[in-house]
């Protein structure tokens, strides 16, 4: 630590004492942000992690229920993930109910109640665990599981009636593609496939070039996850990989400007969040340009339809080579699954299985809180801010209906939340703000 840094630390400590503030900085002061200058990392000069966000003082109170507009019912199959664009939403199906989970439901969501307008049966699949729409709205990508595994690419020229363009499957996608996220790296579209383990074959991550969606090409494959790899999140050329008990890893696949590509990724850093079971990630780009926090979903054990476990973990990635967990959100009796964030308004929406939908205010500095808002966890030897105690919980959806929900996924879109409920179908709710 340089002399100048010592001085800065001392100055910050003195100022905190002098003003009589009882605020508590969980981490050592982030000296790099004192100047309030944008932050870059030597390991990743191509990404600007932004200025340190200002602390936000909120008062914890009972969160209101999110207003429910309507339900598009699906009772023949279990509903899985949701993706929405414009006035159309797509939900996939999972497992075996009265029919097998091989159907994509296509919903008109222009009205209060989603209306089923079409469906597509995907051959040779027992579960369609994931669905995504490309950023230009031209492609729909669906992951298939347990019959060899694949991704199926659909043309969305007519958004209400997808037309299959191609199907990508090979020995690396066996026995199933658990999730398939899509995104662009230097303008080219890729799919990031999380592959299930099988017997003694380990889970792995496969990257597929969708530059020609009619002819997808695998560019990379790596054994990953311990024991599972469940999801990825791509943004600005950084790939966040959910490696279960191996934590969350940040890969440079072209964003840092140091030569890495989707075909030749470079691992920047890793964090083992408390409890492991890292399932999904969202890298927040807040309204002020801050890019310092990522949200990690933990998928603990549960009984589908009845119970679930797992917290949301907030990770400070301002140094991507040494990301660190700084805060968490816990719900008694329920666990989180997938996220969607209204970044303009700073609200994270989390699917919470039997806990419905949770809305969290994620504006400002999430790593700074009062001592009374912290929790020390001996297993990770880490002190973290508790988002609930920080007053960040601002909405709960679907629980008040008392009809038994099990929410797999959520998507925020233009003031509306679409929630895929395994038991009931697709819900349309009003956003928290």
């Amino acid at each position, binding site marked *: 630590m340089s002399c100048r840094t010592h001085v800065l630390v001392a100055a910050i400590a003195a100022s905190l004492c002098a003003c009589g503030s009882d605020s508590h900085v969980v981490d050592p002061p982030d000296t790099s942000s004192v100047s309030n200058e944008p932050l870059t990392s030597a390991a990743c000069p191509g990404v600007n992690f932004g200025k340190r966000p200002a602390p936000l003082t909120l008062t914890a109170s009972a969160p209101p229920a999110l207003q429910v507009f309507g339900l598009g019912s699906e009772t023949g199959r*279990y509903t899985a993930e949701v993706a929405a664009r414009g006035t159309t939403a797509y939900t996939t199906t999972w*497992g*075996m*109910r*009265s029919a*097998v989970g091989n159907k994509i439901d296509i919903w008109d969501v222009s009205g209060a109640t989603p209306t089923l307008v079409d469906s597509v049966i995907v051959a040779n699949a*027992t*579960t369609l665990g994931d669905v995504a729409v490309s950023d230009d709205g031209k492609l729909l990508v669906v992951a298939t*599981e*347990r*019959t060899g595994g694949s991704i199926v690419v659909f043309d969305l020229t007519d958004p209400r009636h997808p037309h299959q363009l191609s199907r990508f499957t090979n020995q690396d996608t066996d*026995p*199933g593609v*658990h999730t398939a996220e899509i995104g662009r790296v230097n303008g080219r579209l890729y799919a990031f496939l999380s592959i*299930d*383990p*099988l*017997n*003694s074959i*380990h889970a792995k991550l496969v990257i597929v070039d969708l530059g020609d969606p009619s002819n997808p090409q695998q560019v990379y494959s790596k054994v990953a996850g*311990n*024991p*599972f790899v*469940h999801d990825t999140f791509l943004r600005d050329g950084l790939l966040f990989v959910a490696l*279960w*008990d191996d934590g969350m890893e940040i890969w440079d696949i072209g964003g840092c400007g140091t030569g890495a590509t989707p075909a030749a990724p470079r691992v920047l850093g890793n964090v083992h969040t408390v*409890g*492991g*079971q890292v*399932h999904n990630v969202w890298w927040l780009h807040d309204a002020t340009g801050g890019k310092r926090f990522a949200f990690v979903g933990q*998928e*603990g*054990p*549960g*009984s*589908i*339809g*009845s*119970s*679930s*476990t797992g917290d949301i973990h907030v990770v400070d990635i301002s140094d991507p080579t040494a990301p660190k967990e700084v805060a968490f959100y816990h719900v008694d009796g329920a666990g989180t699954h997938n996220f969607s964030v209204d970044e303009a308004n700073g609200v994270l929406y989390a699917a919470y299985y039997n806990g419905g939908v949770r809305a969290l205010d994620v504006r400002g500095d999430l790593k700074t809180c009062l001592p009374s808002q912290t929790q020390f966890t001996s*297993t990770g030897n880490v002190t973290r801010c508790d988002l609930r105690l920080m007053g960040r919980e601002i909405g709960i959806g679907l629980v008040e209906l008392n009809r038994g929900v099990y929410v797999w996924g959520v998507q925020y879109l233009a003031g509306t939340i679409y929630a895929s409920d*395994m*038991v009931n179908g697709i819900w349309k709710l009003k956003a928290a703000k």
Partner: protein
Amino acid sequence: MRMVIVVTVATLGAWCDSPAQSWSAGAQAIPLVTPADPTATRAVLTEGYLTQPMFMAHAGWRSLHGVLTLNFEGLTQMRGELSTGGYGEGYVDRRHPHAYVHELLAGVEDSVRGTHLSLYAGRGFAPFGSDDPMVRPFEKYPVNHHLAQILERVLVVGAARAGPVIGELGVFNGDEPLSPGSAPKYSRFGDSWSSRVTLLPARYVELAGSVARVKSPEVPDGHGLDQNKWDLYARYDRRTADSRLYGLAEWAHTNEHASGAISTSLSSWMGEAAVCKKDVMAGLRLEGTDRPEEEPLADPFRTPRPPSDLSNLGVSRWTILTLAVSAPRLLLKSFSARPFVEVARIHAGPGDPPGLFDADLRYGTSWMWMFSAGVRLKVGTIHDRMGRYGAAVVPEPGTRTRSNESHDMPGMPAMPSPAPMTHHSNNAACTL
């Protein structure tokens, strides 16, 4: 493991030419027809197999002993045997085929100051729960198989018997077999343990309590759910020259947990009894057992191994009444053939928590039937008990081992010298 094989093969090769040596060998197979009405296909399904084909051998030379059981179900019923309610190792409503090497152990035994001591190593049963259902009077396994036994692990198990008390402690690998031919994760040896205490309070009576801590049985690389297991049973087995009266009452409980937090609790109670007279045997079994529901594959009888996460689809509760009747055996020298029929009335209901399980959705009904008809073919000597080694082998009242020392109970004033395992001549009445 290689050393275990060498020792065992060498032991088996020993010629039985002195009182200090003993050996036995036998084989079994059951041609079987089983209709299930309905099963996971929501329809009646009838199948036939050669089930439980196995070769069993025990040998002893002075204080050295070997145990070998080869199971060939991987060759004859890889799809699994219809067994509505049954589950485990990636099979559901079918009993999974067992590992080719069901048991392969070498051990040493000795008596010190009236205490019979043994130490066995190899692959076999952890000291937990009751006997393998394969040596009990019913062809169909109870649903509680994976709650009440821990099998086919690489283990070291020590046992001591003093008077009417037997204590056992074993350490082993937590991972269950992935297939009949898959090798255990040797690197995980020692990550799990179990212990069983058995009391022999009176003639014919056996009381046992077990506890086990099993790491990640369903995810071979670890990081799956761990299991804390308990088992209590009372067993009664009285045999005469031409009769047998047998009973087993068992309670088993397994908590699945991650990071210390219980995720699923599974309980089972079971009672089974059999009576045999003039080699005609009738048996009755009633059990209520929880089953964790898992996502089925395209084949409704299979579930992914390893699973893709730590969740299940809830818990179902299986209540099954099974009646078994077998005719006297046809005997020809050391060969025997015992025809039998079994009928089971099955109810599946929601457990706690029910999750997504709905019997009507899965089976079309919550009440089911299952029938079995077959012939138990045996040649040579098949031992009556399976799941205990060395000093933990419960001496059978009124019988004598090859060393001709009494096993009469209770009190056991004189401890028997090391014996490989109690068994009956294949020609004795009322053996299976």
